Protein backbone atom coordinates (compact mmCIF):
# COMPACT_ATOMS: atom_id res chain seq x y z
CA UNK A 1 0.00 0.00 0.00
CA UNK A 2 2.83 2.41 0.91
CA UNK A 3 4.45 1.82 -2.49
CA UNK A 4 1.21 2.52 -4.36
CA UNK A 5 0.65 5.65 -2.31
CA UNK A 6 4.18 6.88 -2.99
CA UNK A 7 3.66 6.26 -6.69
CA UNK A 8 0.45 8.28 -6.53
CA UNK A 9 2.27 11.11 -4.77
CA UNK A 10 4.97 11.18 -7.42
CA UNK A 11 2.43 11.12 -10.27
CA UNK A 12 0.47 13.96 -8.66
CA UNK A 13 3.65 15.99 -8.28
CA UNK A 14 4.49 15.56 -11.96
CA UNK A 15 0.95 16.72 -12.70
CA UNK A 16 1.66 20.00 -10.90
CA UNK A 17 4.84 20.58 -12.90
CA UNK A 18 3.06 19.73 -16.14
CA UNK A 19 0.25 22.17 -15.33
CA UNK A 20 2.64 24.92 -14.22
CA UNK A 21 4.71 24.55 -17.38
CA UNK A 22 1.57 24.84 -19.51
CA UNK A 23 0.55 28.04 -17.70
CA UNK A 24 4.03 29.53 -18.12
CA UNK A 25 4.05 28.65 -21.83
CA UNK A 26 0.62 30.25 -22.19
CA UNK A 27 1.87 33.46 -20.55
CA UNK A 28 4.92 33.60 -22.84
CA UNK A 29 2.81 32.88 -25.92
CA UNK A 30 0.38 35.67 -25.01
CA UNK A 31 3.31 38.02 -24.35
CA UNK A 32 4.72 37.34 -27.82
CA UNK A 33 1.27 37.81 -29.33
CA UNK A 34 0.84 41.24 -27.67
CA UNK A 35 4.26 42.42 -28.84
CA UNK A 36 3.57 41.20 -32.40
CA UNK A 37 0.17 42.91 -32.46
CA UNK A 38 1.60 46.15 -31.14
CA UNK A 39 4.74 46.45 -33.20
CA UNK A 40 4.23 44.26 -36.26
CA UNK A 41 0.46 44.47 -36.66
CA UNK A 42 0.43 40.68 -36.83
CA UNK A 43 -0.97 38.06 -34.48
CA UNK A 44 -0.15 34.46 -33.70
CA UNK A 45 -3.88 33.85 -33.74
CA UNK A 46 -5.35 31.54 -31.15
CA UNK A 47 -3.01 32.31 -28.24
CA UNK A 48 -6.13 32.84 -26.12
CA UNK A 49 -7.52 29.50 -27.22
CA UNK A 50 -4.30 27.68 -26.31
CA UNK A 51 -4.17 29.49 -22.94
CA UNK A 52 -7.71 28.24 -22.26
CA UNK A 53 -6.57 24.68 -22.94
CA UNK A 54 -3.58 25.24 -20.63
CA UNK A 55 -5.96 26.16 -17.81
CA UNK A 56 -8.28 23.19 -18.44
CA UNK A 57 -5.45 20.64 -18.68
CA UNK A 58 -3.43 22.23 -15.88
CA UNK A 59 -6.43 22.16 -13.55
CA UNK A 60 -7.35 18.55 -14.28
CA UNK A 61 -3.76 17.39 -13.84
CA UNK A 62 -3.22 19.35 -10.61
CA UNK A 63 -6.40 18.34 -8.78
CA UNK A 64 -4.75 15.24 -7.33
CA UNK A 65 -1.74 17.06 -5.84
CA UNK A 66 -4.07 19.62 -4.30
CA UNK A 67 -6.04 16.72 -2.79
CA UNK A 68 -2.93 15.02 -1.37
CA UNK A 69 -1.74 18.35 0.08
CA UNK A 70 -5.24 18.92 1.50
CA UNK A 71 -5.46 22.22 -0.34
CA UNK A 72 -9.14 21.82 -1.30
CA UNK A 73 -11.17 24.06 0.95
CA UNK A 74 -13.38 22.65 3.69
CA UNK A 75 -15.25 24.79 6.19
CA UNK A 76 -14.07 23.46 9.54
CA UNK A 77 -15.69 25.83 12.05
CA UNK A 78 -17.86 23.02 13.46
CA UNK A 79 -15.63 20.14 12.45
CA UNK A 80 -12.87 21.09 14.90
CA UNK A 81 -15.33 20.79 17.79
CA UNK A 82 -16.18 17.16 17.01
CA UNK A 83 -14.58 14.10 18.63
CA UNK A 84 -11.93 12.23 16.67
CA UNK A 85 -14.10 9.33 15.46
CA UNK A 86 -16.71 11.67 14.03
CA UNK A 87 -14.01 13.74 12.37
CA UNK A 88 -12.59 10.62 10.75
CA UNK A 89 -16.06 9.73 9.48
CA UNK A 90 -16.50 13.22 8.03
CA UNK A 91 -13.03 13.07 6.45
CA UNK A 92 -13.98 9.85 4.68
CA UNK A 93 -17.39 11.16 3.62
CA UNK A 94 -15.83 14.40 2.35
CA UNK A 95 -13.17 12.53 0.40
CA UNK A 96 -15.70 10.12 -1.11
CA UNK A 97 -18.02 12.96 -2.17
CA UNK A 98 -15.15 14.99 -3.64
CA UNK A 99 -13.78 12.09 -5.66
CA UNK A 100 -17.31 11.03 -6.65
CA UNK A 101 -18.12 14.52 -7.93
CA UNK A 102 -15.11 14.53 -10.22
CA UNK A 103 -15.82 10.93 -11.22
CA UNK A 104 -19.23 12.22 -12.34
CA UNK A 105 -17.54 15.01 -14.29
CA UNK A 106 -15.09 12.51 -15.83
CA UNK A 107 -17.97 10.16 -16.73
CA UNK A 108 -19.86 12.90 -18.57
CA UNK A 109 -16.61 14.46 -19.74
CA UNK A 110 -15.97 11.25 -21.63
CA UNK A 111 -19.19 11.93 -23.60
CA UNK A 112 -17.78 15.33 -24.55
CA UNK A 113 -14.60 13.66 -25.80
CA UNK A 114 -16.50 10.93 -27.65
CA UNK A 115 -18.78 13.44 -29.33
CA UNK A 116 -15.83 15.58 -30.51
CA UNK A 117 -14.21 12.42 -31.85
CA UNK A 118 -17.23 11.15 -33.76
CA UNK A 119 -18.15 14.55 -35.18
CA UNK A 120 -14.51 15.45 -35.89
CA UNK A 121 -15.20 18.93 -34.51
CA UNK A 122 -12.57 21.62 -34.74
CA UNK A 123 -12.25 24.91 -32.87
CA UNK A 124 -13.65 27.95 -34.67
CA UNK A 125 -10.35 29.84 -34.58
CA UNK A 126 -7.52 30.21 -37.07
CA UNK A 127 -5.88 27.21 -35.42
CA UNK A 128 -8.79 24.88 -36.15
CA UNK A 129 -7.61 22.62 -33.34
CA UNK A 130 -9.28 19.20 -33.40
CA UNK A 131 -11.07 19.69 -30.06
CA UNK A 132 -10.78 16.00 -29.22
CA UNK A 133 -7.02 16.40 -28.56
CA UNK A 134 -7.14 18.84 -25.60
CA UNK A 135 -10.37 17.27 -24.37
CA UNK A 136 -8.82 13.81 -24.27
CA UNK A 137 -5.76 15.01 -22.30
CA UNK A 138 -8.19 16.82 -19.95
CA UNK A 139 -10.16 13.61 -19.50
CA UNK A 140 -7.01 11.60 -18.75
CA UNK A 141 -6.16 14.13 -16.02
CA UNK A 142 -9.62 13.77 -14.48
CA UNK A 143 -9.47 9.95 -14.65
CA UNK A 144 -6.01 10.04 -13.05
CA UNK A 145 -7.39 12.23 -10.28
CA UNK A 146 -10.19 9.75 -9.57
CA UNK A 147 -7.69 6.88 -9.47
CA UNK A 148 -5.38 8.73 -7.06
CA UNK A 149 -8.40 9.72 -4.93
CA UNK A 150 -9.37 6.05 -4.58
CA UNK A 151 -5.79 5.12 -3.65
CA UNK A 152 -5.80 7.84 -0.99
CA UNK A 153 -9.09 6.57 0.42
CA UNK A 154 -7.76 3.00 0.64
CA UNK A 155 -4.55 4.30 2.22
CA UNK A 156 -6.51 6.21 4.89
CA UNK A 157 -8.74 3.24 5.69
CA UNK A 158 -5.72 0.94 6.05
CA UNK A 159 -4.01 3.46 8.36
CA UNK A 160 -7.17 3.82 10.43
CA UNK A 161 -7.55 0.06 10.79
CA UNK A 162 -4.01 -0.01 12.21
CA UNK A 163 -4.96 2.73 14.66
CA UNK A 164 -2.46 5.23 13.26
CA UNK A 165 -4.69 8.23 13.90
CA UNK A 166 -2.05 10.91 13.46
CA UNK A 167 -1.12 9.50 10.05
CA UNK A 168 -4.79 9.38 9.03
CA UNK A 169 -5.24 13.02 10.02
CA UNK A 170 -2.15 13.92 8.04
CA UNK A 171 -3.57 12.16 4.99
CA UNK A 172 -7.20 13.31 4.83
CA UNK A 173 -8.06 15.70 7.68
CA UNK A 174 -8.28 19.48 7.40
CA UNK A 175 -5.01 21.27 7.95
CA UNK A 176 -5.82 22.99 11.22
CA UNK A 177 -7.14 19.81 12.80
CA UNK A 178 -3.96 18.01 11.92
CA UNK A 179 -1.90 20.70 13.57
CA UNK A 180 -3.98 20.22 16.69
CA UNK A 181 -3.28 16.51 16.59
CA UNK A 182 0.42 17.21 16.33
CA UNK A 183 0.22 19.46 19.36
CA UNK A 184 -1.59 16.74 21.28
CA UNK A 185 1.10 14.23 20.40
CA UNK A 186 3.82 16.63 21.49
CA UNK A 187 2.05 17.17 24.82
CA UNK A 188 1.68 13.44 25.24
CA UNK A 189 5.38 12.86 24.58
CA UNK A 190 6.36 15.57 27.01
CA UNK A 191 4.07 14.13 29.64
CA UNK A 192 5.49 10.63 29.06
CA UNK A 193 9.08 11.79 29.25
CA UNK A 194 8.37 13.71 32.44
CA UNK A 195 6.83 10.61 33.94
CA UNK A 196 9.82 8.61 32.74
CA UNK A 197 12.13 10.92 34.70
CA UNK A 198 10.14 10.40 37.85
Amino acid at each position, binding site marked *: MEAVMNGARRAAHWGLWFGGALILLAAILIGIDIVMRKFFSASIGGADELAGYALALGTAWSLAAALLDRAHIRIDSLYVLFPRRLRFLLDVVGLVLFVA*FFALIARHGWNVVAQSWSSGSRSQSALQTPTVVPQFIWFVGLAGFVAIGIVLLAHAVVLASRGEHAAVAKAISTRSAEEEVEDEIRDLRERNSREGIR
Partner: protein
Amino acid sequence: MLLTALAILIGLLALAVPVSAGLGFLGVALAELYSKLPLTLAIGEISWATSNNFLLVAIPFFVLLGEVLLRSGIAGRMYNALVLWIPWMPGGLMHANIAACAMFAATSGSSVATAATIGTVAMEEIEKHGYSERLFLGTIAAGGTLGILIPPSINMIVYGVLTDTSIPKLYLAGIVPGLILAGLFSLTVLVFCLARPELGGKRTTASWDQRIRALPDLIPPIVIFLAVIGSIYAGWATATESAALGVIAALAIAAWNRRLSVRMLLHAFEGTMRTTAMIMAILIAAYFLNFVIASIGLTNQVNRFITELNLKSTQLLVAVIVFYLILGCFMETLSMMVATVPIIAPIMVKAGFDPIWFGVLIVILMETAMITPPVGINLYVVQGLRKRGRIDDVIIGAAPFVVTMLVMIVVLSIWPALALWLPQTAAN
Protein backbone atom coordinates in the same frame (compact mmCIF):
# COMPACT_ATOMS: atom_id res chain seq x y z
CA MET B 1 -37.38 24.77 -2.89
CA LEU B 2 -35.33 27.67 -1.52
CA LEU B 3 -35.35 26.28 2.02
CA THR B 4 -34.43 22.79 0.83
CA ALA B 5 -31.52 24.18 -1.15
CA LEU B 6 -30.27 26.22 1.80
CA ALA B 7 -30.64 23.29 4.18
CA ILE B 8 -28.68 20.95 1.91
CA LEU B 9 -25.96 23.54 1.32
CA ILE B 10 -25.53 24.50 4.97
CA GLY B 11 -25.66 20.85 6.01
CA LEU B 12 -22.97 19.75 3.57
CA LEU B 13 -20.66 22.68 4.29
CA ALA B 14 -21.09 22.51 8.07
CA LEU B 15 -20.09 18.84 7.94
CA ALA B 16 -16.81 19.96 6.35
CA VAL B 17 -17.53 18.40 2.97
CA PRO B 18 -15.10 20.06 0.54
CA VAL B 19 -16.78 23.23 -0.77
CA SER B 20 -16.48 22.09 -4.36
CA ALA B 21 -18.21 18.75 -3.71
CA GLY B 22 -20.81 20.48 -1.52
CA LEU B 23 -21.81 22.89 -4.29
CA GLY B 24 -21.67 20.13 -6.91
CA PHE B 25 -23.86 17.65 -5.08
CA LEU B 26 -26.30 20.40 -4.14
CA GLY B 27 -26.64 20.88 -7.91
CA VAL B 28 -27.13 17.14 -8.47
CA ALA B 29 -29.70 16.95 -5.65
CA LEU B 30 -31.69 19.96 -6.88
CA ALA B 31 -31.66 18.57 -10.43
CA GLU B 32 -33.02 15.22 -9.18
CA LEU B 33 -35.65 16.81 -6.94
CA TYR B 34 -37.02 19.62 -9.06
CA SER B 35 -36.35 18.97 -12.73
CA LYS B 36 -37.92 16.52 -15.14
CA LEU B 37 -34.96 16.97 -17.46
CA PRO B 38 -31.69 15.06 -16.83
CA LEU B 39 -29.76 18.26 -16.06
CA THR B 40 -26.77 16.36 -14.67
CA LEU B 41 -25.92 15.18 -18.18
CA ALA B 42 -24.71 18.71 -18.92
CA ILE B 43 -21.98 18.52 -16.27
CA GLY B 44 -19.30 17.32 -18.72
CA GLU B 45 -19.94 20.14 -21.18
CA ILE B 46 -20.18 22.78 -18.41
CA SER B 47 -16.97 21.59 -16.75
CA TRP B 48 -15.05 21.71 -20.02
CA ALA B 49 -16.40 25.17 -20.89
CA THR B 50 -15.55 26.53 -17.43
CA SER B 51 -12.11 24.92 -17.42
CA ASN B 52 -10.99 26.60 -20.63
CA ASN B 53 -12.69 29.98 -20.06
CA PHE B 54 -10.09 32.52 -21.20
CA LEU B 55 -11.13 35.09 -18.57
CA LEU B 56 -10.31 32.61 -15.81
CA VAL B 57 -6.80 32.01 -17.18
CA ALA B 58 -5.93 35.27 -15.39
CA ILE B 59 -6.22 33.38 -12.07
CA PRO B 60 -3.20 31.06 -12.52
CA PHE B 61 -1.30 33.95 -14.09
CA PHE B 62 -1.76 36.10 -11.00
CA VAL B 63 -0.95 33.25 -8.65
CA LEU B 64 2.21 32.49 -10.65
CA LEU B 65 3.11 36.20 -10.67
CA GLY B 66 2.83 36.23 -6.87
CA GLU B 67 4.86 33.04 -6.50
CA VAL B 68 7.67 34.46 -8.65
CA LEU B 69 7.65 37.81 -6.81
CA LEU B 70 7.76 36.05 -3.45
CA ARG B 71 10.95 34.29 -4.52
CA SER B 72 12.56 37.20 -6.38
CA GLY B 73 13.56 39.31 -3.39
CA ILE B 74 11.76 42.46 -4.58
CA ALA B 75 9.36 42.58 -1.62
CA GLY B 76 12.17 42.77 0.92
CA ARG B 77 13.94 45.59 -0.91
CA MET B 78 10.70 47.49 -1.41
CA TYR B 79 9.86 47.19 2.28
CA ASN B 80 13.30 48.36 3.39
CA ALA B 81 13.07 51.37 1.08
CA LEU B 82 9.62 52.30 2.40
CA VAL B 83 10.90 51.95 5.96
CA LEU B 84 13.41 54.71 5.30
CA TRP B 85 10.72 57.05 4.03
CA ILE B 86 7.76 56.54 6.32
CA PRO B 87 8.49 55.91 10.01
CA TRP B 88 8.56 59.52 11.25
CA MET B 89 4.86 59.35 12.18
CA PRO B 90 3.70 58.00 15.57
CA GLY B 91 3.29 54.29 14.87
CA GLY B 92 6.48 54.15 12.84
CA LEU B 93 6.98 50.95 10.90
CA MET B 94 3.32 50.05 11.16
CA HIS B 95 2.66 52.74 8.55
CA ALA B 96 5.40 51.20 6.43
CA ASN B 97 3.58 47.86 6.72
CA ILE B 98 0.39 49.39 5.38
CA ALA B 99 2.16 51.32 2.64
CA ALA B 100 4.11 48.22 1.61
CA CYS B 101 0.90 46.18 1.52
CA ALA B 102 -0.83 48.83 -0.61
CA MET B 103 2.12 48.99 -2.99
CA PHE B 104 2.46 45.23 -3.21
CA ALA B 105 -1.32 44.97 -3.73
CA ALA B 106 -0.81 46.91 -6.94
CA THR B 107 1.21 43.97 -8.27
CA SER B 108 -0.71 41.16 -6.63
CA GLY B 109 -4.20 39.81 -7.18
CA SER B 110 -4.45 38.05 -3.86
CA SER B 111 -4.69 39.16 -0.24
CA VAL B 112 -3.05 36.01 1.06
CA ALA B 113 0.00 36.60 -1.14
CA THR B 114 0.16 40.23 -0.02
CA ALA B 115 -0.04 39.46 3.69
CA ALA B 116 2.40 36.55 3.37
CA THR B 117 4.96 38.50 1.36
CA ILE B 118 4.96 41.67 3.43
CA GLY B 119 4.56 39.70 6.66
CA THR B 120 7.67 37.66 5.92
CA VAL B 121 9.86 40.75 5.66
CA ALA B 122 8.13 42.85 8.34
CA MET B 123 7.92 40.29 11.14
CA GLU B 124 11.59 40.55 12.14
CA GLU B 125 11.16 44.22 13.00
CA ILE B 126 8.71 43.79 15.89
CA GLU B 127 11.20 42.97 18.62
CA LYS B 128 14.05 44.95 17.12
CA HIS B 129 12.11 48.16 17.61
CA GLY B 130 9.87 47.29 20.56
CA TYR B 131 6.44 47.48 18.95
CA SER B 132 3.17 46.35 20.42
CA GLU B 133 3.08 42.92 18.86
CA ARG B 134 -0.70 42.75 18.53
CA LEU B 135 -1.24 46.00 16.67
CA PHE B 136 1.79 45.33 14.49
CA LEU B 137 0.41 41.92 13.48
CA GLY B 138 -2.96 43.56 12.87
CA THR B 139 -1.47 46.01 10.36
CA ILE B 140 -0.11 43.11 8.33
CA ALA B 141 -3.30 41.03 8.44
CA ALA B 142 -5.49 44.04 7.58
CA GLY B 143 -3.05 45.72 5.18
CA GLY B 144 -2.71 42.43 3.33
CA THR B 145 -6.42 42.41 2.51
CA LEU B 146 -5.78 45.42 0.22
CA GLY B 147 -4.40 42.84 -2.21
CA ILE B 148 -7.85 42.20 -3.68
CA LEU B 149 -9.12 45.82 -3.63
CA ILE B 150 -6.19 47.56 -5.30
CA PRO B 151 -5.97 46.07 -8.80
CA PRO B 152 -5.15 43.52 -10.09
CA SER B 153 -7.53 41.31 -8.16
CA ILE B 154 -8.49 37.66 -8.45
CA ASN B 155 -11.75 38.27 -6.57
CA MET B 156 -12.71 41.03 -9.01
CA ILE B 157 -12.06 38.64 -11.89
CA VAL B 158 -14.34 36.07 -10.28
CA TYR B 159 -17.01 38.73 -9.64
CA GLY B 160 -16.68 40.00 -13.20
CA VAL B 161 -17.01 36.51 -14.66
CA LEU B 162 -19.95 35.55 -12.41
CA THR B 163 -21.91 38.75 -13.13
CA ASP B 164 -20.76 39.60 -16.67
CA THR B 165 -19.26 42.88 -15.49
CA SER B 166 -16.24 44.55 -17.12
CA ILE B 167 -13.06 43.53 -15.27
CA PRO B 168 -11.06 46.63 -16.39
CA LYS B 169 -13.84 48.86 -15.02
CA LEU B 170 -13.83 46.94 -11.73
CA TYR B 171 -10.05 47.41 -11.53
CA LEU B 172 -10.37 51.18 -12.01
CA ALA B 173 -13.19 51.33 -9.47
CA GLY B 174 -11.00 49.65 -6.86
CA ILE B 175 -8.11 52.13 -6.99
CA VAL B 176 -9.56 55.14 -5.12
CA PRO B 177 -11.34 53.11 -2.40
CA GLY B 178 -8.14 51.07 -2.03
CA LEU B 179 -6.04 54.17 -1.41
CA ILE B 180 -8.66 55.62 0.95
CA LEU B 181 -8.84 52.38 2.91
CA ALA B 182 -5.03 52.27 3.19
CA GLY B 183 -5.17 55.87 4.45
CA LEU B 184 -7.86 54.95 6.99
CA PHE B 185 -5.73 52.02 8.20
CA SER B 186 -2.84 54.42 8.77
CA LEU B 187 -5.18 56.82 10.54
CA THR B 188 -6.28 53.97 12.81
CA VAL B 189 -2.65 53.27 13.74
CA LEU B 190 -2.07 56.98 14.32
CA VAL B 191 -5.08 57.32 16.62
CA PHE B 192 -4.01 54.30 18.67
CA CYS B 193 -0.42 55.47 18.95
CA LEU B 194 -1.37 59.02 19.91
CA ALA B 195 -3.66 57.67 22.61
CA ARG B 196 -1.13 55.12 23.85
CA PRO B 197 2.41 56.09 22.73
CA GLU B 198 3.92 52.90 24.18
CA LEU B 199 2.34 50.91 21.30
CA GLY B 200 4.47 52.75 18.77
CA GLY B 201 7.96 51.38 19.35
CA LYS B 202 11.23 53.22 18.91
CA ARG B 203 11.46 55.84 16.18
CA THR B 204 13.98 55.07 13.51
CA THR B 205 15.75 57.79 11.57
CA ALA B 206 17.22 57.88 8.11
CA SER B 207 19.31 60.43 6.30
CA TRP B 208 18.14 61.94 3.01
CA ASP B 209 21.10 60.35 1.33
CA GLN B 210 19.94 56.88 2.43
CA ARG B 211 16.41 57.67 1.33
CA ILE B 212 17.39 58.76 -2.16
CA ARG B 213 19.67 55.77 -2.64
CA ALA B 214 16.84 53.37 -1.70
CA LEU B 215 14.46 54.78 -4.32
CA PRO B 216 15.46 52.39 -7.14
CA ASP B 217 14.14 49.51 -4.99
CA LEU B 218 10.63 50.89 -5.49
CA ILE B 219 10.92 50.59 -9.27
CA PRO B 220 10.22 46.83 -9.73
CA PRO B 221 6.70 46.93 -8.23
CA ILE B 222 5.91 50.00 -10.32
CA VAL B 223 7.11 48.20 -13.46
CA ILE B 224 4.78 45.29 -12.75
CA PHE B 225 1.85 47.57 -11.98
CA LEU B 226 2.43 49.39 -15.27
CA ALA B 227 2.75 46.12 -17.19
CA VAL B 228 -0.50 44.75 -15.76
CA ILE B 229 -2.73 47.80 -15.36
CA GLY B 230 -1.06 50.15 -17.85
CA SER B 231 -1.30 47.67 -20.71
CA ILE B 232 -5.07 47.35 -20.23
CA TYR B 233 -5.75 51.07 -20.34
CA ALA B 234 -3.27 51.68 -23.16
CA GLY B 235 -5.48 49.33 -25.14
CA TRP B 236 -2.67 46.84 -25.74
CA ALA B 237 -4.06 43.95 -23.76
CA THR B 238 -7.24 42.48 -22.30
CA ALA B 239 -7.51 41.77 -18.57
CA THR B 240 -6.20 38.21 -18.98
CA GLU B 241 -3.46 39.18 -21.43
CA SER B 242 -2.25 41.87 -19.05
CA ALA B 243 -1.84 39.21 -16.36
CA ALA B 244 0.44 37.29 -18.75
CA LEU B 245 2.52 40.46 -19.17
CA GLY B 246 2.75 40.69 -15.40
CA VAL B 247 4.14 37.14 -15.25
CA ILE B 248 6.76 37.98 -17.87
CA ALA B 249 7.73 41.22 -16.09
CA ALA B 250 8.07 39.35 -12.79
CA LEU B 251 10.27 36.70 -14.43
CA ALA B 252 12.44 39.43 -15.95
CA ILE B 253 12.86 41.12 -12.55
CA ALA B 254 13.67 37.79 -10.90
CA ALA B 255 16.30 37.14 -13.59
CA TRP B 256 17.69 40.66 -13.07
CA ASN B 257 18.03 39.91 -9.33
CA ARG B 258 19.70 36.57 -10.21
CA ARG B 259 16.95 34.61 -8.49
CA LEU B 260 15.60 32.83 -11.57
CA SER B 261 16.44 29.12 -11.76
CA VAL B 262 14.77 25.87 -12.76
CA ARG B 263 14.41 24.92 -9.11
CA MET B 264 12.76 28.22 -8.30
CA LEU B 265 10.41 27.85 -11.27
CA LEU B 266 9.39 24.33 -10.27
CA HIS B 267 8.60 25.52 -6.74
CA ALA B 268 6.60 28.38 -8.20
CA PHE B 269 4.74 25.90 -10.45
CA GLU B 270 3.82 23.75 -7.45
CA GLY B 271 2.37 26.64 -5.45
CA THR B 272 0.59 28.04 -8.49
CA MET B 273 -1.12 24.88 -9.62
CA ARG B 274 -2.12 23.75 -6.14
CA THR B 275 -3.96 27.04 -5.64
CA THR B 276 -5.33 27.05 -9.19
CA ALA B 277 -6.72 23.52 -8.88
CA MET B 278 -8.38 24.45 -5.58
CA ILE B 279 -10.01 27.58 -7.04
CA MET B 280 -11.05 25.89 -10.30
CA ALA B 281 -12.58 22.92 -8.47
CA ILE B 282 -14.90 25.36 -6.69
CA LEU B 283 -15.63 27.37 -9.83
CA ILE B 284 -16.48 24.29 -11.90
CA ALA B 285 -18.93 23.09 -9.26
CA ALA B 286 -20.37 26.60 -8.92
CA TYR B 287 -21.00 26.91 -12.65
CA PHE B 288 -22.83 23.60 -12.67
CA LEU B 289 -24.86 24.64 -9.61
CA ASN B 290 -25.73 28.00 -11.18
CA PHE B 291 -26.91 26.22 -14.32
CA VAL B 292 -29.17 23.95 -12.25
CA ILE B 293 -30.45 26.82 -10.10
CA ALA B 294 -31.42 28.84 -13.17
CA SER B 295 -32.96 25.81 -14.92
CA ILE B 296 -35.25 24.86 -12.05
CA GLY B 297 -36.38 28.46 -11.54
CA LEU B 298 -34.82 28.92 -8.11
CA THR B 299 -33.29 32.26 -9.11
CA ASN B 300 -36.76 33.57 -9.98
CA GLN B 301 -38.14 32.28 -6.72
CA VAL B 302 -35.47 34.10 -4.71
CA ASN B 303 -36.11 37.25 -6.71
CA ARG B 304 -39.86 37.04 -6.04
CA PHE B 305 -39.21 36.43 -2.37
CA ILE B 306 -37.01 39.52 -2.09
CA THR B 307 -39.43 41.65 -4.11
CA GLU B 308 -42.33 40.60 -1.88
CA LEU B 309 -40.39 41.70 1.19
CA ASN B 310 -40.82 45.18 -0.28
CA LEU B 311 -37.60 46.53 1.21
CA LYS B 312 -36.40 50.03 0.54
CA SER B 313 -33.09 49.95 -1.29
CA THR B 314 -31.24 51.14 1.83
CA GLN B 315 -32.80 48.36 3.90
CA LEU B 316 -31.84 45.85 1.23
CA LEU B 317 -28.27 47.15 1.24
CA VAL B 318 -27.99 46.95 5.02
CA ALA B 319 -29.43 43.42 4.97
CA VAL B 320 -26.90 42.32 2.35
CA ILE B 321 -23.99 43.89 4.25
CA VAL B 322 -25.00 42.24 7.53
CA PHE B 323 -25.49 38.93 5.70
CA TYR B 324 -21.92 39.04 4.34
CA LEU B 325 -20.41 40.20 7.63
CA ILE B 326 -21.94 37.22 9.43
CA LEU B 327 -21.24 34.71 6.66
CA GLY B 328 -17.70 36.10 6.44
CA CYS B 329 -16.93 34.94 9.95
CA PHE B 330 -17.47 31.33 8.95
CA MET B 331 -16.72 31.03 5.24
CA GLU B 332 -13.68 31.32 3.06
CA THR B 333 -14.10 34.29 0.72
CA LEU B 334 -13.90 32.67 -2.70
CA SER B 335 -16.42 29.96 -1.77
CA MET B 336 -18.66 32.63 -0.30
CA MET B 337 -18.56 34.76 -3.46
CA VAL B 338 -19.12 31.84 -5.80
CA ALA B 339 -22.06 30.55 -3.75
CA THR B 340 -23.84 33.89 -3.25
CA VAL B 341 -22.90 36.50 -5.88
CA PRO B 342 -24.78 34.91 -8.82
CA ILE B 343 -28.02 35.26 -6.82
CA ILE B 344 -27.44 38.45 -4.84
CA ALA B 345 -25.79 40.66 -7.48
CA PRO B 346 -28.79 40.58 -9.89
CA ILE B 347 -31.13 41.45 -7.01
CA MET B 348 -28.99 44.45 -6.12
CA VAL B 349 -28.76 45.62 -9.71
CA LYS B 350 -32.54 45.32 -10.06
CA ALA B 351 -32.90 47.46 -6.91
CA GLY B 352 -30.93 50.19 -8.67
CA PHE B 353 -27.38 49.66 -7.42
CA ASP B 354 -24.54 49.95 -9.89
CA PRO B 355 -22.96 46.53 -10.62
CA ILE B 356 -19.42 47.97 -10.63
CA TRP B 357 -20.01 49.74 -7.32
CA PHE B 358 -21.52 46.60 -5.83
CA GLY B 359 -18.45 44.66 -7.00
CA VAL B 360 -16.21 47.00 -5.02
CA LEU B 361 -18.49 46.72 -2.00
CA ILE B 362 -18.38 42.92 -2.20
CA VAL B 363 -14.59 43.00 -2.38
CA ILE B 364 -14.39 45.18 0.77
CA LEU B 365 -16.81 42.80 2.52
CA MET B 366 -14.54 39.91 1.48
CA GLU B 367 -11.57 41.81 2.94
CA THR B 368 -13.45 42.09 6.22
CA ALA B 369 -14.19 38.36 6.09
CA MET B 370 -10.45 37.70 5.81
CA ILE B 371 -9.75 39.16 9.25
CA THR B 372 -12.89 38.17 11.18
CA PRO B 373 -12.59 35.01 13.31
CA PRO B 374 -13.01 32.07 13.48
CA VAL B 375 -12.43 31.67 9.74
CA GLY B 376 -10.21 34.51 8.51
CA ILE B 377 -7.53 33.45 6.10
CA ASN B 378 -5.24 36.42 6.72
CA LEU B 379 -5.33 35.82 10.47
CA TYR B 380 -4.09 32.29 9.78
CA VAL B 381 -1.42 33.51 7.38
CA VAL B 382 0.02 36.02 9.86
CA GLN B 383 -0.12 33.52 12.72
CA GLY B 384 1.53 30.94 10.43
CA LEU B 385 4.43 33.33 9.73
CA ARG B 386 4.80 34.14 13.39
CA LYS B 387 5.13 30.50 14.47
CA ARG B 388 4.62 31.24 18.18
CA GLY B 389 2.05 32.56 20.63
CA ARG B 390 -1.69 32.27 20.20
CA ILE B 391 -3.79 33.32 17.23
CA ASP B 392 -5.83 35.47 19.66
CA ASP B 393 -3.06 38.09 19.49
CA VAL B 394 -3.57 38.43 15.74
CA ILE B 395 -7.37 38.48 16.12
CA ILE B 396 -7.24 41.23 18.74
CA GLY B 397 -4.64 43.19 16.77
CA ALA B 398 -6.77 43.06 13.62
CA ALA B 399 -10.04 43.99 15.38
CA PRO B 400 -9.58 47.80 15.17
CA PHE B 401 -9.15 47.47 11.42
CA VAL B 402 -12.46 45.60 11.13
CA VAL B 403 -14.05 48.76 12.51
CA THR B 404 -12.06 50.81 9.97
CA MET B 405 -13.44 48.61 7.18
CA LEU B 406 -17.00 49.13 8.44
CA VAL B 407 -16.36 52.88 8.29
CA MET B 408 -15.12 52.42 4.72
CA ILE B 409 -18.30 50.51 3.82
CA VAL B 410 -20.45 53.34 5.18
CA VAL B 411 -18.35 55.95 3.36
CA LEU B 412 -18.60 54.05 0.09
CA SER B 413 -22.35 53.63 0.49
CA ILE B 414 -22.88 57.35 1.08
CA TRP B 415 -20.52 58.41 -1.73
CA PRO B 416 -20.67 55.74 -4.47
CA ALA B 417 -18.76 58.17 -6.69
CA LEU B 418 -15.55 57.26 -4.82
CA ALA B 419 -15.61 53.99 -6.74
CA LEU B 420 -17.46 55.06 -9.87
CA TRP B 421 -15.73 58.36 -10.68
CA LEU B 422 -12.54 56.82 -12.12
CA PRO B 423 -14.19 54.26 -14.44
CA GLN B 424 -16.69 56.88 -15.62
CA THR B 425 -13.96 59.42 -16.31
CA ALA B 426 -11.94 56.82 -18.19
CA ALA B 427 -14.98 55.87 -20.29
CA ASN B 428 -15.37 59.46 -21.48
